[in-house]
């Protein structure tokens, strides 16, 4: 981040020979991203106005019917639901991740790395497998409901699987680690003497937390929110394995278009619509971080 003094003034004009090397270092990464990210994005954008042949294969062309199909209220309805689920997921992830990251960063001592590893390692397992496991845990005769029933907290009609709770639980479980890591990084960097200073100035624990710790880790939280929100918006696995008919997310519809529907153009148009929504959200985030940086520079 911008802790070192900003390089302004005369330094800019005098380009060190080393610069060119750094430029070359960027070439492989740029090529990679261009080939596999930007080129495929361009393909998706072009296919959104494409057509399909009789075999269901996508063909390039210019046909606005897929774009027009987006006006079907079913899509905006499902998109709004996805937005709601993703925002809820973000909030829950933040509430879970903050105490975890705080405890590890400030009170973890020599177990810090081990604890972070304990959180990250389970995420090496494939996402689909973990979600499938969850659907077993949450099923009607699964361990969770059996335990709840035995202590009288659930009756035979209670269900978690195939409900909105199930889907959000799946999303939170799937992506919470993306919140913990940036928050941990922010808290780790936090100068503890700032907290001490707050306490010295007669701030209670709560006031110190609200006015010192929280603002200092705001950027970590913002990064975490973005990292959770983006994949949650595109997710279809959680809704497929843990949702019911009223929990379909936009990712499920997009997946349907590419597979069963054999309608890649409509799938591409939906993808572009989703990306547009996400882009608007991201612009807000970028403006915010730029403002933060400007403030930090004074």
């Amino acid at each position, binding site marked *: 981040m911008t802790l070192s003094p900003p390089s302004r003034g005369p330094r800019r004009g005098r380009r060190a020979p080393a610069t060119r090397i*750094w430029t070359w270092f960027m070439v492989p990464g740029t090529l990679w991203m261009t080939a596999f990210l930007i080129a495929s994005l361009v393909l998706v954008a072009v296919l959104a106005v494409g057509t399909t042949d009789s075999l269901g294969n996508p063909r390039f062309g210019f046909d606005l019917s897929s774009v027009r199909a987006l006006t079907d209220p079913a899509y905006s309805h499902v998109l709004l639901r996805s937005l709601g689920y993703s925002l809820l997921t973000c909030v829950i992830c933040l509430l879970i991740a903050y105490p975890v990251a705080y405890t590890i960063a400030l009170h973890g001592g020599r177990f810090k790395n081990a604890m972070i590893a304990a959180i990250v390692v389970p995420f090496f397992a494939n996402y689909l497998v973990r979600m499938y496991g969850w659907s077993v845990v949450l099923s009607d005769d699964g361990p969770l409901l059996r335990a709840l029933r035995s202590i009288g907290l659930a009756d035979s009609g209670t269900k978690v699987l195939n409900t909105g709770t199930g889907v959000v639980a799946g999303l939170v479980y799937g992506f919470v680690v993306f919140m913990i890591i940036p928050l941990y990084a922010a808290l780790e960097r936090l100068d503890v003497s700032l907290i001490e200073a707050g306490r010295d100035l007669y701030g209670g624990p709560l006031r110190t937390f609200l006015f010192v710790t929280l603002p200092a880790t705001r950027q970590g939280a913002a990064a975490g929110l973005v990292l959770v929100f983006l994949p949650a918006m595109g997710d279809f696995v959680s809704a497929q394995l843990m949702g019911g008919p009223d929990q379909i997310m936009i990712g499920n519809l997009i997946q349907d278009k590419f*597979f069963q529907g054999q*309608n890649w153009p409509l799938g591409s148009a939906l993808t572009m619509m989703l990306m547009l929504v996400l882009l608007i959200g991201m612009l807000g985030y970028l403006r915010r971080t730029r403002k933060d940086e400007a403030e930090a520079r004074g």
Partner: protein
Amino acid sequence: MSPEVPPPSRRTVLRAGACGLLSAAGASLSGCGFMPAKKPDERDLAPVRARVDGDLVYFNWADFVDPSVFKGFEKEYGVKVIQSNFDSMEGMVAKLNAGNRYDIVFPTAKWAQRLVRGGRLRRIDHSELANSHAVFGKHSYFADPWYDPGSAHTVPFTAYKTGIGWRRDRIGDLTGSWKDLWSDRARGKVFLLDDRDEVLGMGALHLGLDVSTADPGDLDRVTASLATLRPRLRGFSSDSYNNLLNGNALMTQAWSGDMAAMLNQAKDPSVFGFQAPKEGTPINSDCYAIPYNARHPGTAMLFIDYMLRPENVKKNIEYIGYPMPVSGSEEIYRALVKPFPECVVTEDDLKADLFFRNGSRAQEDARDTAWTHVKAG
């Protein structure tokens, strides 16, 4: 990034990016199915003799052939079976279209028709297959099926139908109709298959309409009727056998083969039921086919013939739970699915002809929109 070194200018990055973009776009345009595909030569479509011409590159659903059958084939002909699997017909065809070369693939009827029409399959000379009479001689339906006139490019592999699987121990007996899905006894614990054709087909049959209807008026009626089922549903899932086994479903739309497989898993089969509703049950089949660009079509022919040997048919039926239209295997299957006699696919079932058909682009789009409305509510 170190603040000591100013980042490369935007133009440098853009220039590098533009080069990458051009080369990537070039590669993707020339390689995949986005451009009109080249029609294969007549030479590539002509039948070949059944003889060893290399290892077998096999492409099918996972676990669809008894592993001991593969071993036997490898041993007898001194070749290797190189296996890969697909998880959807769409995925299979996408890989074929992308130019991947397989010796043998297993499309369902609807997809076989598309591949035949697209000139993607090599013709098969039945007289080269010593065991083919057990199929075409006895099961006349497959001698000239709608998806491949004269079975010129395909040999049928399995057949199955779609019905309702349910927990007899929890909700008792059903009435033998698709209307049972609306029954209050299972309310909130009913699943439909996560499959456009199956769900729209069920809705159409239950209203007495054509199983593959794409008529806008029909589709509106189907959508409206399924909207009344929606509040009773727990979800759309094709994992019907696990849903019944673990009690998440009391009733579910289900494929006969999955129900037969469930019999293997169940401790007490009498707690389950499977019915083929009287309004009509969608029927489907898949088949052996040799893509035009197969490197070893001769070995593929030998493999088909080997799979049709009575002892191998028996092994496979017992392994996967799907019946095969091979004369002599009917009793084996009947015995396997004794608790669910309606799993059996009879000649009459086939002649009722409730296969899902390919539609024109406009028809497919209409069905797709209807499915979105059924699913998204």
